């Protein structure tokens, strides 16, 4: 991969992050359009996107965000309150940015229709705004295409200065601990080109290390062609603003061959440091700013003050592939450590020093495992923030007023799961609004509810798992209707006696929908099926709880991580299997009286009135063993998508966290097994896929 391609990949990643953030921020801004700080934040995102898009040849995106930036800049500089319809334009613009980004990435020539329309709206709005506020500004032949630079094209030099100050402020906001911010003024002599110097040479050198680099060329002294000589410098001044890890001395070295009067370097302190030095500045009346100024003539005086007094969080960007590799290595380390801990020969050594070392090794391994795990964990906040947009759009489409309540947004979850969680959540939320809530405010009021529907999005830990729930306070699920539909479709028999959760689970069957009308949001019976499949891919499950008249809650239950599973180790015919603890309800040795055999339906256990089919692992995997009666064995009751089953085993070995290993292609075909794990003693155990232990069609309910 070439350097340019690498840079492009970084740009795409960053651009997507910016766009995702814009999507969230714009909805927050819509909620509170007086939040100027948030407007600045949006502006900064758009500004960065503009620069990067143009640099990588995404000119269509660059052009759009350029105008959008102009509009944002107008509002942030005038502090004018934003009209509701114009807020809608902001939201629309972010949508266009998202769509154009896709077009740019996929090299799609045809831009969406909304591109031109939205761009036109922005231009018109800008024209209206600018003509209203700046009637005296001479109309230039220049199209109103330009960004900040254009605006000061015919205005005073004072405005140029403001522009530099704006840029300084912007870069200050991007500054982190390891970066220094410099303002460099270049006033090169007329003969500089002949001496081999050009502004662009310095920009190129600075650009090699700078994370942000802006330069402002003051061309006011350029003469008409009659008097102009292109080999003589007539640019009066260039101001460079650079955010770079280079220290003062290194910056100075770049300009060391210039005359002292041709350059001036100013080290600008970070924002926090600037605030801290305010009091010192007041004591020093000769200092107008807190900048650490060092002209070429007094270079040595203040360099030692280059110490960043703020300690912002320092972050580095790491490829998730590398984190996954590290995670795999730690998995191996855990296995090796378990092997040592459980090795009988080592354990038989009654050497205190060795035992202590093993104990220390265990503790350190656990600590490393926890820390590496934490690298993959991210707060669910961003995903929840995205859902605000979904709620807003669905609310508008369905004409239902909705209050969204978000709880537990700081709950952390595996990054891989976060990435795959958005779509299921969108499905559930749309479904909740479209079908869960009553069709209008009047209907709600008539049953004693508030006119506005309430959707609650919640994340929390429960029994070592993460639960993400979406609740609505709508009409709830009509169980009878669901059951009737299921019988009509032949999904269940007329005489089958289903529990409440089994009835609700029918809603997640492919093609099952009770919706009488199909909207573009939901009702086709594909959404919840997709949700279920997506969540199961993440080793999780979906539970539905509903009370007619009060509302419905969809709970997505996920393991903490995809790479490690909490499992119950069981033994059957000398073989060890792992049952995911997430599915286990209880284990017990049944009494003879509660075990029944039904002709053509097999063995059942009557557990507190519920008849649960018994599944013998020795039958499933065709293991050679002496057949024991169920009351002489142990049953592990597990929840599966087809209802509860009782797995018959010989022995319970214990509960353990195991690192999941994928099986080879040939074993992957065995649907009853979802993976393998290496145990502490070096043995291999297979992880059971409990949902496949009995096909759905064989479910029998008595």
């Amino acid at each position, binding site marked *: 991969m070439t350097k*340019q391609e690498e840079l492009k990949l970084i740009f795409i990643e960053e651009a997507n992050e910016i766009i995702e953030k814009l999507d969230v921020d714009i909805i927050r801004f819509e909620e509170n359009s007086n939040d100027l700080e948030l407007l600045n934040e949006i502006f900064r995102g758009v500004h960065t996107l503009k620069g990067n898009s143009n640099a990588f040849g995404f000119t269509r995106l660059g052009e759009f965000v350029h105008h959008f930036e102009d509009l944002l800049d107008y509002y942030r500089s005038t502090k004018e309150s934003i009209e509701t319809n114009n807020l809608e334009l902001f939201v629309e613009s972010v949508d266009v940015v998202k769509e154009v980004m896709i077009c740019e990435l996929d090299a799609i020539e045809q831009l969406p229709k909304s591109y031109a329309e939205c761009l036109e709206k922005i231009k018109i709005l800008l024209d209206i705004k600018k003509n209203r506020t700046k009637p005296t500004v001479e109309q230039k032949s*220049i199209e109103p295409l330009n960004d900040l*630079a254009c605006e000061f094209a015919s205005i005073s030099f004072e405005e140029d200065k403001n522009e530099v100050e704006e840029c300084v402020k912007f870069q200050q906001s991007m500054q982190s601990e390891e970066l220094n911010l410099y303002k460099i003024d270049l006033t090169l002599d007329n003969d500089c080109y002949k001496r081999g110097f050009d*502004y662009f040479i310095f920009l190129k050198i600075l*650009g090699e290390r700078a994370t*942000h680099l802006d330069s402002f060329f003051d*061309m006011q002294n350029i003469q*008409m*062609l009659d008097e102009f000589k292109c080999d003589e410098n007539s640019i009066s001044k260039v101001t460079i603003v650079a955010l770079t890890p280079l220290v003062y001395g290194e910056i100075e070295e770049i300009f060391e061959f210039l005359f002292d009067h041709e350059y001036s370097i100013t080290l600008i302190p970070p924002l926090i440091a600037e605030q801290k030095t305010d009091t010192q500045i007041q004591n020093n009346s000769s200092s107008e700013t807190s900048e650490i100024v060092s002209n070429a003539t007094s270079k040595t005086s203040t360099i030692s003050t280059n110490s960043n007094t703020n300690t912002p969080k320092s972050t580095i960007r790491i490829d998730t592939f590398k984190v996954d590799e590290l995670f795999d290595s730690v998995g191996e380390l855990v296995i090796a450590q378990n092997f040592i801990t459980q090795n009988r020969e080592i354990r038989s050594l009654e050497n205190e020093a060795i035992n202590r070392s093993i104990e220390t090794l265990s503790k350190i391994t656990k600590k490393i495992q926890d820390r590496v795990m934490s690298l993959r964990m991210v707060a669910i906040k961003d995903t929840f923030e995205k859902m605000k947009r979904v709620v807003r759009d669905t609310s508008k489409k369905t004409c239902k007023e909705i209050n969204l309540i978000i709880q537990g947004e700081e709950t952390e979850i595996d990054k891989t799961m976060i990435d795959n969680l958005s779509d299921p959540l969108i499905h559930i939320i749309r479904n909740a609004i479209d079908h869960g809530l009553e069709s209008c405010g009047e209907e709600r009021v008539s049953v004693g509810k508030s006119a506005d529907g309430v959707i609650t999005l919640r994340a929390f830990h429960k029994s070592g798992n993460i639960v993400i729930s979406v609740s609505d306070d709508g009409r709830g699920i009509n169980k009878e209707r669901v059951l009737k539909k299921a019988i009509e479709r032949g999904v269940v028999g007329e005489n089958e006696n289903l529990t409440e959760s089994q009835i609700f689970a029918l809603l997640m069957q492919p093609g099952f929908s009770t919706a009488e009308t199909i909207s573009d949001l939901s009702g086709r019976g594909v959404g919840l099926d997709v949700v279920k499949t997506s969540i199961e891919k993440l080793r999780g499950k979906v539970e539905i709880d509903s009370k007619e008249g009060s509302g419905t809650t969809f709970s997505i239950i996920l393991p903490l991580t995809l790479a490690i599973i909490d499992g119950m180790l069981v033994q059957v015919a000398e073989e060890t299997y792992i049952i995911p603890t997430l599915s286990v309800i209880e284990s017990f040795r049944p009494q003879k009286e509660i075990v029944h055999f039904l002709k053509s339906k097999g063995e059942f256990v009557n557990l507190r009135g519920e008849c649960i089919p018994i599944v013998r692992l020795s039958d499933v995997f065709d293991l050679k063993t002496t057949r024991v009666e169920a009351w002489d064995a142990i049953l592990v009751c597990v929840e599966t998508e087809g209802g509860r089953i009782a797995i018959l085993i010989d022995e319970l070995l214990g509960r353990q966290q195991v690192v999941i290993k994928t099986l080879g292609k040939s074993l992957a075909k065995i649907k009853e097994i979802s993976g393998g794990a290496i145990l502490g003693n070096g043995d291999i155990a297979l992880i059971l896929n409990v949902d496949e232990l009995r096909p759905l069609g064989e479910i029998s309910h008595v």
Partner: protein
Amino acid sequence: MEINGDEIIIELDMPMDEVVKFEEFIRPRIEYIEKIETEPKGTLTSGALLSLLVSIKRTRPQIEIPFLEKGWATSSTHGTLHWTYHD
């Protein structure tokens, strides 16, 4: 440099000697030129060319120079450039 009727297309990354040649070319022909376009993927690499474009625009404001009129440019090597010229 390409000439297309009354439109000239120039490369932005021309070295100093070419800038001088461009200046020499345009000086006697300035009244006949309607537009100066730039190669789409080029990057400005000299203050001399930028100055020359400003000088041309100042001498004959009717000439369209979209690159200059934009007021800014970005490149991965030189960062974001902003310029001001006063008519």
